[in-house]
């Protein structure tokens, strides 16, 4: 089956150009280069119709940038983006508009994504009206039905965002995304800022909407607990690359990559009391200057000489389970053998 959306070798770099003084200095022989942030490097990703794909990783790993590239907000520096099997770069204007509407994004902080000077009715109703999905006279009813669907009282549709609580504002963001009848929703840390009890309400709403409207989600989060609950498949990123991807059950039960293993072990749980922490050393390196070979090798407890020389490829290690680790090339040292023991 053709995936709903697919990225092949997706790469996104951010370049800071030189200012006048630096250009002058370089002309005079100083060793100054442009600074390039390697946010996303050669990512292959495919999301199938109807599934929830969880994308996890720590701050600065490039998961939000990848989400924005897939949502069509940021053009990729390199690589192909395919929508229903067709290259987005080659789409006609009309088809590209259709794809833009079909992929919607919900952000972490609704206060910075909702215009504070607009009323809820305009925040939710403007896009479908402009794109001709509803007639001007029907906007009021349309917005009311959307608000009802996401659990907001339609009587509040003439209010401003600041008159709502954090959880309600996130519901406004969800209603706004739904207003243009999307197929794929990219949720970027959409429940991370919410209190536990409110977070559970919003997660339930996401799952209900998925069934009612046949939605597909790319669910980006640093919270492994939430991702474990909601996802069908999971991918984990480290310094711009996907290092492991698998079905959710497999991912959490039999992680392969040493980074995944370490991250899952450090996840605080209410079941572990006064436990010993065995943190992985160091911090995520700067994407300005990624280490050679496997980017995780400076922190990896099982690093070998080859790890600092060659970049490991993402290879299958089990059914529908891919991992990028040199240990998999040495059967005696398979990383999974440690977790199984």
């Amino acid at each position, binding site marked *: 089956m053709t995936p709903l959306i697919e990225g092949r070798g997706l790469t996104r770099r951010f370049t800071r150009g030189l200012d006048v003084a630096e250009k002058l200095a370089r002309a005079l022989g100083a060793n100054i280069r442009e600074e390039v942030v390697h946010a996303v490097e050669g990512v292959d990703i495919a999301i199938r119709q109807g599934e929830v794909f969880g994308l996890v990783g*720590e*701050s600065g790993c490039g998961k939000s940038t990848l989400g924005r590239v897939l949502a069509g907000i940021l053009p990729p520096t390199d690589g192909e983006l395919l929508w229903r099997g067709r290259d987005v770069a080659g789409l006609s204007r009309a088809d590209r508009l259709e794809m833009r509407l079909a992929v919607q994004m919900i952000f972490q902080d609704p206060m910075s994504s909702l215009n504070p000077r607009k009323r809820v009715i305009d925040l939710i109703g403007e896009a479908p009206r402009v794109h001709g999905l509803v007639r001007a006279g029907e906007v009021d009813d349309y917005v009311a039905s959307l608000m009802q669907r996401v659990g907001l009282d339609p009587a509040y549709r003439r209010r401003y965002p600041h008159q709502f*609580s*954090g*959880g309600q504002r996130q519901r406004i963001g969800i209603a706004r995304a739904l207003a243009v009848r999307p197929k794929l929703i990219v949720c970027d840390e959409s429940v991370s800022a919410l*209190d*536990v*009890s*409110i*977070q*559970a*309400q919003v*997660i*339930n709403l996401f*799952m209900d909407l998925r069934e009612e409207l046949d939605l597909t989600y790319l669910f980006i989060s*640093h919270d*492994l*607990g*939430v991702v*474990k*609950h*909601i996802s069908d498949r999971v991918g984990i990123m480290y310094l711009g690359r996907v290092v492991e991807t698998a079905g*959710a*059950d497999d991912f959490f039960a039999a992680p392969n990559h040493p980074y995944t293993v*370490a*991250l899952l072990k*450090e*996840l*605080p*749980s*209410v*079941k*572990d*009391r*006064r*436990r*010993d*922490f*065995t*943190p*992985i*050393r160091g*911090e*995520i390196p700067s994407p300005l200057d990624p280490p050679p070979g496997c980017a995780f090798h400076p922190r990896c407890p099982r690093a070998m000489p080859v790890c600092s020389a060659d970049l490991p490829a993402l290879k299958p290690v089990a059914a529908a389970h891919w991992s990028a680790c040199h240990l998999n090339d040495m059967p005696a040292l398979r990383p999974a053998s440690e977790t199984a023991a």
Partner: protein
Amino acid sequence: MVAVLQVEGLQTWFGTKDAPVRAVDGVSFSVARGEILGLVGESGSGKSITGFSILGLVDPPGRVVGGRVLFQGQELVGAPPETLRRIRGKKIAMIFQDPMMTLNPVLSIETQMVEAVLAHDDTPRAEARARARDALGLVGIPSPEERLGAYPHQFSGGMRQRVAIAIALLHKPDLIIADEPTTALDVTIQSQILFEVRRLADAFGMALVWISHDLGVVASLADRVAVMYAGRIVESGGVDDILDRPAHPYTRGLLDALPATARRGERLRPIPGMAPAPTARPSGCAFRTRCFAAGPDCAAAEPEPTRAGERQWRCFHPLAEAAA
């Protein structure tokens, strides 16, 4: 056992006399030497204001209107500013969620740390500098000698929080109040910080009040837990009692809402509704409008604390599992 910190009926209100906002409304707890107390609650429950009130850090219009804060037997509520100044940073230290609340962005780490040492101790500068360096090493900052000269913006978020903790440790305080210190950090960095904090608390016998909304973090760190809702501690006790056999329906609700407790794909069980605004709390028990166990008696009066061994709760209908 003598408590390092004893808080009794603490009330911190905001707003005007006619319409007070009761952010903290009768909070009582105590922390013993070497003990880690997890103070848990959702946004707006008053947990941070409780922490600020202990150190007299609440800014007007907020004010402590009632209750006592006894630190090693000494009353801190209404104590003269000079007394509080001698205790803050020396005997009681505070760590904030955002380390930039502690650090001055335009001064080097060395300047700030040496100043913190000299604020309380009359030592030669070189010795103060050595203490600063040792404190940085203690919290796991590599090559502390060189890092002393760096400025806060040259550190990552996790390293900045380590510096803030190092400053808190400079005087080997008897009590540390930590307000969501790892909330903004990644899992691996959070784990590193929790590891260091646990090690240091054990080594120095410090008492620790760890304020957090994250039950997972509190479970893995704390000896005892106090759960706050709407300005009050609704339940407190040993970490196993509270998390395995909660007495208060609110604690049960928080635990049930965690994604980890449901199976994948199953619906989560959130607490219905949302926390009431502090100006519009229901009569009687503030949680009754969201509570599955509430009866008519819950609206009539506020539940007083019920004691059972080491734990206590404020509820007319405590869950049966707590008694077992």
